[in-house]
């Protein structure tokens, strides 16, 4: 099958197309929800199948499926909570992970402190940090910096003004960096590498 080829919009065509995308979809789902990633993928697959006719070219299937999954997730979040979770996360205005690392110097023998810090996180640690962030910050952050959606696309997907998304990305990054630091301390990730 050629890259830009178009399969028949049949059940078989659908199966062939989505099977290869399952790992990517499931991983995205796990970045969005703590529990229920598999259910989220199933619901997205169901909706994707119904909308299969709208997929223009097979090459775009990955992004198309992710978009559907995010839509399903957004609707679930809305149904779950009428009010947006804007719980205060403390004053972030002056937190800098870069400076915190310089000041706290967790790896005194390292000459690449900041790089080493990021390397102590495996993918499960990172997921745990992300999952701790409120939805309104986590979702834009994941979509923008992990899954490569443009900010405009995110605004459209989440049906929010671009300015709101930019502000949430902004705050979300600070929050994320603060949680990275807190998690590293809490999980003892900063002691393992001291000997380097």
């Amino acid at each position, binding site marked *: 099958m050629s890259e830009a080829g178009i399969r028949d919009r049949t059940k078989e065509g*659908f199966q062939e197309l989505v099977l290869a995308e399952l790992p990517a979809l499931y991983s995205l789902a796990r970045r969005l929800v703590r529990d229920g990633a598999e259910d989220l993928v199933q619901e997205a697959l169901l909706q994707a199948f119904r909308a299969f006719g709208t997929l223009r070219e097979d090459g775009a299937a990955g992004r198309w499926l992710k978009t559907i999954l995010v839509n399903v997730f957004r609707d679930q979040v809305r149904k779950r909570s009428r009010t947006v979770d804007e719980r205060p996360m403390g004053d972030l205005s002056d937190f800098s992970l*870069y400076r915190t690392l310089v000041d706290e110097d967790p790896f005194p023998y390292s000459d690449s402190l900041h790089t080493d810090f990021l390397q102590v996180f495996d*993918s499960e640690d990172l997921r745990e940090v992300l999952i701790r962030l409120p939805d309104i910050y986590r979702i834009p952050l994941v979509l923008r910096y992990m899954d490569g959606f443009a900010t405009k696309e995110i605004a459209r997907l989440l049906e929010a003004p671009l300015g709101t998304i930019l502000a949430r990305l902004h705050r979300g990054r600070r929050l994320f960096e603060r949680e990275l630091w807190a998690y590293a301390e809490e999980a003892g990730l900063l002691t393992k590498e001291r000997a380097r």
Partner: protein
Amino acid sequence: MTDTKAIPCSEAVRQLWDYLDHAIPPEDQEKVEKHLSFCRSCCGELEFAKEMRAFLATSTAQEIPPHVKERLERFVERL
């Protein structure tokens, strides 16, 4: 003439990611650049911001437990 008034570190740091995304107006882009040209600390912040972005972009491991994969495959087959 564009306003090339110097910006403080706090302002430069606040705009770093948007600067990397080219998501700020050219005159702000210029101000950040100018600040970076003389501020070592903010250059460190910039390098770290780049590393953080690379870290996030490459941490998208596509792991799926075999039993989950199997269940989802069966789900697709039964659609």
